[in-house]
């Protein structure tokens, strides 16, 4: 509770950009045990991210939205939850997906344009990737309401960004969750840019976390590039949610080091100097520094992390390079439980076209 601060522009931080602990970590000794694992997942996320961009450049993927720079926020959040807690991501959550153990194949094929949403998500209690901004926040609240009825101690997390906080659906979701005291966490990765629109053009609020006050919701602003701060904030929010104390808004202050997507050119709207200043606050480098200075580092960690990451990159390439397309007749399979007569006749029409093409 002591770390949940309302309407505060300061943020919660445990490890600063130089890898120095700014708060006592003894409050959770187990952190030093899990930190190496988090480090490995962050490294994997960074590397898979790079491989996705390579694959897009090689014409194997249609598009990819890089999460470079946001690995601390994502892994910090995902690692603080139970495997059964439902997650409602947007589309820039590679760190969350990898932490949950979603096969890179299913993520890569979605960006290749093989099918929408992503394969292998639901069995990991992760909703398909959601592209209309902020819409999935309402799904998270509905699922949280359901968790309460099921009494399964489940917590749901809505992953949204700074841009999404301007959307009507996010307002409706936060208000509903607060009114119903739903076990839901709104994890806002404030990466400063919504494509080309900076935060200052998105909101006049003193901070995104401060919006929690208006909803009657606990809120906290954390250093989003500090994996420990994100982990602690989400752990505490989840504990509150599980004990019936309702939702929490977490603003993780971070930065999108890459382009919005592979189709975007950020040099049109932001200065290199800004990017450079955030590169100095890299979430991965600071964990390594901290582990080194606190005596938890050993080179095997790096070797193992890089080996896992290389394996994932290899797996991704194997899965998506020249991957076959599904049959276009599948268009008609998932509209309804049973296709209507119209859909059946349209399926036959396409089948005939395909046959003519040979």
């Amino acid at each position: 509770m002591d770390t949940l601060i309302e309407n505060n522009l300061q943020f919660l931080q445990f490890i600063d950009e130089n890898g120095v602990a700014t708060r006592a970590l003894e409050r959770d000794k187990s952190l030093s045990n899990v930190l190496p694992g988090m480090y490995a997942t962050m490294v994997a996320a960074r590397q898979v991210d790079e491989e996705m961009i390579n694959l897009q450049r090689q014409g194997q993927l249609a598009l990819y939205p890089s999460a470079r720079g946001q690995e601390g926020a994502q892994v910090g959040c995902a690692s603080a939850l139970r495997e059964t807690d439902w997650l409602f991501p947007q589309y820039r959550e590679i760190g969350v997906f990898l932490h949950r153990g979603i096969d890179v194949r299913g993520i890569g094929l979605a960006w290749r344009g093989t099918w929408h949403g992503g394969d292998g998500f639901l069995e990991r209690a992760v909703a398909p990737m959601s592209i209309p901004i902020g819409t999935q926040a309402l799904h998270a609240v509905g699922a949280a309401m359901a968790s309460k009825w099921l009494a399964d101690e489940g917590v749901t997390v809505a992953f949204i960004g700074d841009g999404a906080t301007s959307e009507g659906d996010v307002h409706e979701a936060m208000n509903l969750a607060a009114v119903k005291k739903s076990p839901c966490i709104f994890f806002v990765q404030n990466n400063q840019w919504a494509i080309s629109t900076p935060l200052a053009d998105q909101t006049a609020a003193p901070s995104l976390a401060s919006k929690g006050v208006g909803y009657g919701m606990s809120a906290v602003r954390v250093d989003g590039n500090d994996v420990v701060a994100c982990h602690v904030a989400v752990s505490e929010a989840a504990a509150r949610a599980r004990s019936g104390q309702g939702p929490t808004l977490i603003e993780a202050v971070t930065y999108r080091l890459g382009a919005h997507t592979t189709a975007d050119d950020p040099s049109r709207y932001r200065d290199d100097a800004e990017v450079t200043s955030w590169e100095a606050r890299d979430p991965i480098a600071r964990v390594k520094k901290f582990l080194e200075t606190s005596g938890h580092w050993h080179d095997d960690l790096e070797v193992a992390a890089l080996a896992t990451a290389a394996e994932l990159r290899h797996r991704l390439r194997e899965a998506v390079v020249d991957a076959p397309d599904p049959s276009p007749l599948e268009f008609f399979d998932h509209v309804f439980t049973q296709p209507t007569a119209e859909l059946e006749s349209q399926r036959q029409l396409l089948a005939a076209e395909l046959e003519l093409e040979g």
Partner: protein
Amino acid sequence: MAQLTMVEAINAALSDAMQTDEQVVVFGQDVARQGGVFRVTEGLQERFGDNRCFDMPLAESAIIGSAIGMAIRGFRPVPEIQFDGFTFPAFEQIASHLAKYRNRSRGLLAMPITVRVPSFGGIGSPEHHSESTETLWVHTAGLKVVVPSSAADAYSLLLDSIECDDPVIFLEPKRRYWAREEVVRGTRREPIGRAVVRRTGTTVSVVTYGGLVAVALEAARIAEEQHGWHLEVIDLRSLVPLDFDTVATSIIKTGRCVVFHEGPRTLGMGAEIAARAQEELFWNMEAPVLRATGFDTPYPPGRLEHLWLPGVDRLLDTVKQSLSYDRI
């Protein structure tokens, strides 16, 4: 056997569905404490408790969006949008998620959600309370669209809709809310996707649905008395799936068809029925498919709606026009 109003019949269907299936939850604006602005949900919260029937903040997108989350967790939500004109704030959730979730999850996730919407005009409502929205949903792949015309049909079709694993937009014609009909609890009529011939005839096929079925039957009675025309009245009941076979059988018999709906004419159901008829029944037609519909204008103020809405006169004028096509 009881004579129930459509309001009572829908209430009975909700109550029976909640009794049968614990995963059915009913919610919306003013549905619990007040029992709904039309009293459709009266008594459900008292009977089934706060977790099964509850009020929502005034936020339509939240009503549909949260229903989607509940469905993901295995519930069978039956949300209410208070009036037709207020479905628009929820349009994105309906079009981008409710309709597409099965497809986005490649068939893994069903959306067994029935969205009830008191709909259409004819009761002198203020602005935004009399909209015909059906074409929007029909044109959005992945939604079933059901429009009952009477109390017993509403009871049966609503139970079918709630049991259906596909999302259903259930449009209740407000002007028929207080019309009574015998409703036998626990029995079902024709399933979703089956049209019903409400009156048989040989002169012209009148294809309609919802609140205009009763108007068409009245027009058919007058037409027979005054002109000796025998109109066949078809109640579509569901627009998706569309039972075109029943329509086609009728057109083959009469050779003439008038589509009768409240909503604006352009790209309404009349356009689709006409297109299908000329594609599939060209040589069976004695006349082009004609339409008796609302106008391509915003819905008028209440005091003028009777002049805007297609009624007996507009339908019979259109029937007369159809009959004027005569092969020489």
